[in-house]
């Protein structure tokens, strides 16, 4: 049960950080999301993001920062296995499902839906 509570709190807090970036620092949504992704990658590199995931579950995996961490994790894993070329082969390893789903279902949406304005 407290997995859910921490997911709520940590996920909410990461969104608050995003909201502050947009409202106080006047960053566009694209700039905000990009910053959070890079932050996720950096925290992943410092081995700080995985503990956050263990603690907050979806509260850490659902925000876009997790995307940065996953990109990095994939690169690191392949780097260990195959050496430097692993950086290139591993980056999309863990994020493939997310990107593929977004492309596939986004395209399907364009087949079915019309913009409502």
């Amino acid at each position, binding site marked *: 049960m407290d997995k859910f509570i921490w997911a709520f709190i940590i996920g909410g807090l990461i969104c608050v950080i995003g909201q502050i970036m947009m409202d106080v620092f006047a960053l566009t949504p694209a700039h905000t999301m990009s910053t959070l992704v890079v932050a996720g990658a950096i925290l992943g590199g410092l081995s700080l993001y995985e503990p956050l995931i263990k603690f907050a579950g979806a509260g850490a995996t659902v925000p876009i920062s997790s995307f940065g961490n996953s990109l990095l994790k994939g690169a690191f894993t392949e780097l260990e296995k195959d050496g430097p070329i692993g950086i290139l082969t591993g980056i999309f390893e863990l994020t493939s499902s997310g990107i593929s789903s977004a492309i596939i279902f986004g395209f399907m949406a364009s087949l079915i839906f019309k*913009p*409502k*304005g």
Partner: protein
Amino acid sequence: MVKGKQSFIFDAGVHILSASTVVGPFEGKGPLSDDFDIIHDDIWMNQGSFEKAEKIMLEEAALKTIEKAGIKKEDINLFISGDLLSQIISSNFAARTIGSPYIGIYSACSGSMESLLLAALIMEGNDIPYILTGTSSHNASAEKQFRYPTEYGSQKPPTAQWTVTGAGTCLLTKMFQGPKVVSATIGKIVDMGISDPFNMGSAMAPAAADTIYTHFQDMGITPDYYDIIATGDLGNVGHKICKDLLKDKGLEMPEHIFTDCGILIYGDNQKVQAGGSGCACSAVVTFGHFLNRMKRNEISKILIVATGALHSPLSYQQKESIPGIAHGVSIEM
């Protein structure tokens, strides 16, 4: 006749023979809905794209104005029009339908008054029977071009404005009596360094203040000469700023005279943040609402100062600020 620094008086007697307005469903739910000739049920207007819908509105407004004047589209000697889309395609395609000689203009949301004053200037010194002017804008096509896809979930700040979906046209002639285009003040670019496309009111207010101030200097009159002085689409935010800027210059704008088309077009129950914007904003409010009031003898002298933000999506990305402009035209009964 040239008057002062930037203004003209049209001595030859240029009159508005007819005018009409077409709007979308959202505007049709607003406080001025009775003043619009055609209200569409949805923003697609049976077309395959929002851009095509905008073209249809401008065509409808043009043909309705021609119909109201009791002439045929073959009688139009010149069509002057502009809109917000790249390469002003709405105006170009509407001009294709009308088939008359055509001058396309771009001055963003000040297009309604820029086309009107250009037409008056051309008609003043020449024997041209009929000149048709107009502008259009469409909320979805403008959002797609200048900001984000319409279904994108970005949170608009309270200074953002809502582009009016509509088109307004009017027909000028020297041959008949009607509301008279008396004077015009051509604006200069004023850029005070605002670069936020979600805060156009602040970007355009200095240009509006500059044109309004110049108009009264050039014409040698005071604001109370007019029954209504309306800026095009400064919205709540820009209108207040403009009022204060003029106050600083020593020009008090009376509360009951000074208003803004972007504030008038939508009701308080319509969530539009700071108010309406877009070329159609000043066009439909002027050619629909204000002209109707003049015909009912409620008001007899108006000054419309349409405001435009002359940036592009690219200039914003290249860290340029938003240059503003405002063109004023006075109409008297």
